[in-house]
């Protein structure tokens, strides 16, 4: 059971959690990650983000990542949501939720999906501030975190 959504619409973490929880009596562990627009990134005084993606490719790459995660860990349900378009401070950007029998698998798959989302899925963020805008640079930390999962 897995679901991928990419689009402008916001998401409801309560609803996503409810669906992860509704994955049968074998589920003992649910790990979730949510990313929010924060007030400082490459720039300070961030008031919003503009998120661009490569429609069609994005969804395929995420589906493929979920397949990889299911090969590495025992997963009972996976949900990935990524928003695009213009977002404002404190808005939700991304949700990754994983249900498994065991917490190790749930945590590992959730981190794997977030790490690879940052380095191998065609999304680009532009930071918006009062005084201008700026395409976010890929971070060395993100490359390192992505690399730790091998290929």
């Amino acid at each position, binding site marked *: 059971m897995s679901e991928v959504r990419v689009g402008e619409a916001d998401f409801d973490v309560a609803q996503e959690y409810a669906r992860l929880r509704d994955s049968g009596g074998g589920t003992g562990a649910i790990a979730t990650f949510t*990313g929010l627009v924060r007030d400082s990134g490459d720039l300070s005084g961030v008031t919003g983000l503009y*998120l*661009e*993606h*490569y429609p*069609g*490719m994005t969804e*395929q*790459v995420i589906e493929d990542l979920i397949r990889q995660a299911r090969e590495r860990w025992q997963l009972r349900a996976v949900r990935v949501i*990524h928003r695009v378009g213009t977002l404002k401070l404190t808005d939700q*950007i*991304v949700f990754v939720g994983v249900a498994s029998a065991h917490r190790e698998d749930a945590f590992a798959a959730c981190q794997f999906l*977030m790490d690879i*989302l*940052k*380095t*191998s*899925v*065609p*999304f*680009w*963020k*532009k930071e918006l501030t009062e005084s201008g805008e700026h*395409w*976010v*640079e*890929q971070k060395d930390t*993100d490359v390192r975190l992505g690399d730790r999962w091998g290929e």
Partner: protein
Amino acid sequence: MAEDTVTIRYFARLREELDTDGESVPCAGARTAGDLLAQLASRGGPWQQLVEGQPVMIAVNQAMARPETPVQPGDEVAFFPPVTGG
């Protein structure tokens, strides 16, 4: 799309700096994504950044690719900056 062209797509910073989100270019015979990059860069001006300076990522038919990935007529080839989602 004519059979002897490839569709090129640009995203994010590249889309803005090249001032286009894509185009069709002729593609006769066997080529690589790197050959296409070099051909486009030879236009000069902002196009030179495709082979100089910040790295450019490549997708062929919506799958991550490398400069040595072969490109056939009819393919969709995308060039973009390193990704920053999540």
